[in-house]
């Protein structure tokens, strides 16, 4: 655990002393100004819970990707050989990303409270916080799989593919219509949804996106079932499975790290 903490502080110092680190912080504050501060009449509970949670879930993914790719350099050789397990390195990357994203999220959420239309009740906080935490964890675990550090063979392509299917399907089921170029591909989900032959694929996608769709419901002011209340825990479980999958991929990977 001590090695993980030391690596977290190392990775964060390395990131925050760079231009990329500064851009991450500026990005977080810019998000507040654009998405929260500039909303006329303040933000309601749904907006507060979903937009901040969703945005920082994505930030967690991007930040994990950034830290993992900054670690995919020969500077890491001299630390990696001292570790008893490569899993320690991945754990440090994920926790560094979650920690930094979490701090940014707390700052933005605290600022957003001043723009919230109505008070933040304990019940509301208890609904929103588990969803936010689980989205941070899920974003970080996915971030590992789309990084070069963990990639083995076609694993990254598969990760991007699953991510695309989940985002596209979520958008479809939430009633959002893809615009522009994407309109040309509307026949694909329609074909899958309408065809008996592809019913299994449709069901599979339903299973894949259920925890996220349920978590969205929990974070909103709508009633939710007991099963749906478990969705943040399911998301955390998915994040853990993805993390151990990343450990398995990285643990058996030949490390030939670029020198630049």
């Amino acid at each position, binding site marked *: 655990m001590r090695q993980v903490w*030391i*690596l977290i502080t*190392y990775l964060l110092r390395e990131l925050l002393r760079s231009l990329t680190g500064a851009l991450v912080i500026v990005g977080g504050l810019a998000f507040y100004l654009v998405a929260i501060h500039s909303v006329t009449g303040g933000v309601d509970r749904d907006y507060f819970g979903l937009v901040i949670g969703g945005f920082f879930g994505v930030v967690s993914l991007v930040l994990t990707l950034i830290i993992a790719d900054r670690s995919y350099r020969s*500077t890491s*050789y*001299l*630390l990696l*050989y*001292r570790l008893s397990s490569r899993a320690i390195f991945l754990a440090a990357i994920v926790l560094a990303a979650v920690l930094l994203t979490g701090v940014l999220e707390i700052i933005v959420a605290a600022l957003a409270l001043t723009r919230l239309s109505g008070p933040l009740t304990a019940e509301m906080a208890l609904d929103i916080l588990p969803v936010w935490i689980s989205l941070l964890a899920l974003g970080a675990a996915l971030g590992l799989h789309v990084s070069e550090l963990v990639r083995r063979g076609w694993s990254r392509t598969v990760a991007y593919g699953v991510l695309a299917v989940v985002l596209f399907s979520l958008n479809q089921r939430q009633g959002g219509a893809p615009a522009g170029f994407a309109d040309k591909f509307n026949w694909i989900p329609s074909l899958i949804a309408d065809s008996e032959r592809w019913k299994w694929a449709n069901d599979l996608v339903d299973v894949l996106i259920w925890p996220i769709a349920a978590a969205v419901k929990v974070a909103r002011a709508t009633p939710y079932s007991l099963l749906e209340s478990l969705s943040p825990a399911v998301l955390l479980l998915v994040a853990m499975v993805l993390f151990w999958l990343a450990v398995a991929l990285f643990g058996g990977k030949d490390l030939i790290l670029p020198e630049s």
Partner: protein
Amino acid sequence: MIRITDLTKRYGDVTALQGLSLTVPAGSIYGLLGPNGSGKTTLLRLIVGYLFPDQGCIELLDGVRHQLGFLPERPRFPRRFGVREYLVTAGQVGSLSGGPLARSVDAALERTGLGQMADWRIAACSKGMLQRLGLAQALLTRPNLLLLDEPFGGLDPAARAAMRHLLAELSRAGKTVVLSTHQLGDVTQLCTHIAILSEGRLARSGLLSEVLAPRSRVVIEVDRLPELIAWQLRQFHPGVTPSPDGTEIHLAEDALSAKPAILRLLLDARIDILRVAEESATLEDVYLETVHP
């Protein structure tokens, strides 16, 4: 200390190491030699654990897996860190803390001559300093096994001498050092054992003194060698080589039996013999014979 058995490593269609077996004794300074692409760096990375073998195994005896220090060929560091700050972090990752950490960092800085630069930013360090910083981090945890990939690269002659001195001192203290290098002079001065790799295979290995000892040659210096005599000399044995300028005749080890006949020929031809000297083969001779037979 290290036992390597039937080790094979491939990168796609390229075979970097093929059926390599060797043993590195404890307390030795083991030099890995070979042309570029012969598999030296791959072998070190396999021992450290960055790469996984396709076949064969590497046994690190006496539980040294967590007590090794490694210096890659071109060590890279986070440029925005300070020299001491980086060493402290590396030491902490290596499970040092408190007083022992501070003492190890100070000792590593002093041993590598970086004491004066401890507060410099790494971005301000020269190539030679970075090489010494790489060695400093390798020494931090007082490892029993040091794996050094081209440790003399980028060092000036004084720093190279200091590096040799330091490695010899570590060997006297019972540490095992495995280094890969192209600097044959440093190997001759420093190493107790060598292994020459060629195209991923072990071409020659053993104690340096044994590799060099049985190899000797004779040089006969003459005033001037006529073409006809030079041609006749070549007919004695393929190991007899007159120099192009006609002032020396080299007899390889397997041609030494022809020496009396050659001297008689030279005397009969009334050629002045200036000197007859027996010279031990250098490591360079052995190396060139091995990798370019």
